[in-house]
């Protein structure tokens, strides 16, 4: 703990991610972004980094459950008839090569990708924009658990992960970005985004967080 301007502020990563006040936020690890038969796979995105990030996330999720850290699943969600799309958002979504037909609500492409499997009782938060905080109950769910810190990973780095992590800081959560659970469609974009984000919050590898959580199991009441 450190004192800054008279306020008690968590100091070490160990303090920040203590299981008693931390949640794991898994961003958009869905078939359309991660599975070879999903949207990205079909348009020829190299899924090597994304696949590795999913596998590492599976280990982090297990460690979170063992430590009593709530796991929250964020799902990008498209509604039919553009019901969740404003004109401005449609223009943004259809730029370049991005076509808007992914993660249609209820479709296979929208589902969490294996080997990640949601357990009963773990909240699913559907979102219609990049940030997991815009138009969702995520903040409500976090504050209902007394959460102070978000451990964040998922896809894609410069999109929904970066938007979510920044918004988490603006909603007054400590953020730890788990480097090896984050990936995107190109290594160049990934590095660029990580450089920009590295000035804003803590970074750790999954192994470090898993180790911290294993040493500090939450007391079961």
């Amino acid at each position: 703990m450190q004192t800054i301007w008279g306020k008690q502020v968590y100091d070490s990563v160990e303090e920040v991610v203590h299981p008693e006040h931390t949640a794991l936020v898994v961003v958009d690890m869905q078939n359309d972004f991660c599975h070879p038969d999903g949207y990205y796979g079909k348009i020829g995105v190299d899924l090597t980094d994304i696949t590795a990030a999913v596998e590492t996330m599976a280990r982090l999720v297990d460690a979170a459950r063992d430590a009593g850290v709530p796991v929250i699943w964020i799902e990008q969600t498209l509604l039919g008839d553009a019901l969740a799309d404003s004109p401005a958002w449609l223009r943004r979504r259809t730029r370049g090569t991005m076509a808007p037909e992914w993660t249609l609500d209820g479709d296979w492409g929208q589902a969490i990708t294996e080997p990640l499997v949601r357990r009963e009782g773990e909240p699913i938060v559907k979102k219609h924009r990049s940030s997991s905080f815009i138009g969702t109950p995520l903040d409500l769910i976090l504050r209902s658990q007394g959460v102070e810190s978000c451990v964040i990973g998922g896809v894609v780095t410069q999109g929904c992960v970066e938007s979510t992590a920044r918004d988490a800081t603006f909603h007054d959560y400590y953020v730890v970005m788990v480097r090896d659970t984050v990936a995107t469609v190109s290594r160049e974009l990934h590095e660029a985004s990580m450089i920009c984000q590295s000035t804003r919050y803590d970074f750790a590898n999954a192994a470090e967080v898993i180790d911290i959580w294993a040493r500090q199991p939450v007391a079961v009441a």
Partner: protein
Amino acid sequence: MRRSATALLVSGLQNDFFDTKGVLAATGSDISAVQAIVPAVERVLGAARDAGCLIVHVHERTLEGGMSDSPAWRAQYELNGWQDTFAAEGTWGEEPLDGFRPQEDELVVERYRPGAIYDTRASVLLRSAGVDRVVVAGAETHRTILATAIQAACLDYEVVVPEGAVASADPVRHAAAIAVLRSWAHVVDVDGVVEELARLPRSTHEILEG
């Protein structure tokens, strides 16, 4: 380019609030005043559908394992003497009342507190549809209707409340809430709302298609 559109928010038309076997009735409340608004809500819903309004079914939900319950929120249960959890996820009590199942092109917004706007996806969806006016119906007046009206008004939506299509089990609280609502919303009788919906220039769907 920007055109106005109206959405109908139907809040709380769920078994736990409207069925005698639901949680509201189990608190000992006489829910006959709540049940009595069903035909009026159906009328407003029918008129809004005919006018092509965006229809949003707002459903209260309590997540499993206390995931949506803060200590402060749980304290409200004590304050109100509630024993059972309202609209627990996956239960019969959470399901829509007969006659209020969402149709294909209609939206469902889950809320975890009385207000339908904050901490929900309502505003993203309303903005996506170009909505700038909401009609709010359902129960209870002093909880979800009042909270939703104030949140919507503060986010710059024009708010209309059809008086006969909102109710609280307790008539004193209903009357008090209506008095407060008059400072936030156009409180209009159901006939007036139905007539106005019939006069609407045109619908959300035409705006999206046009």
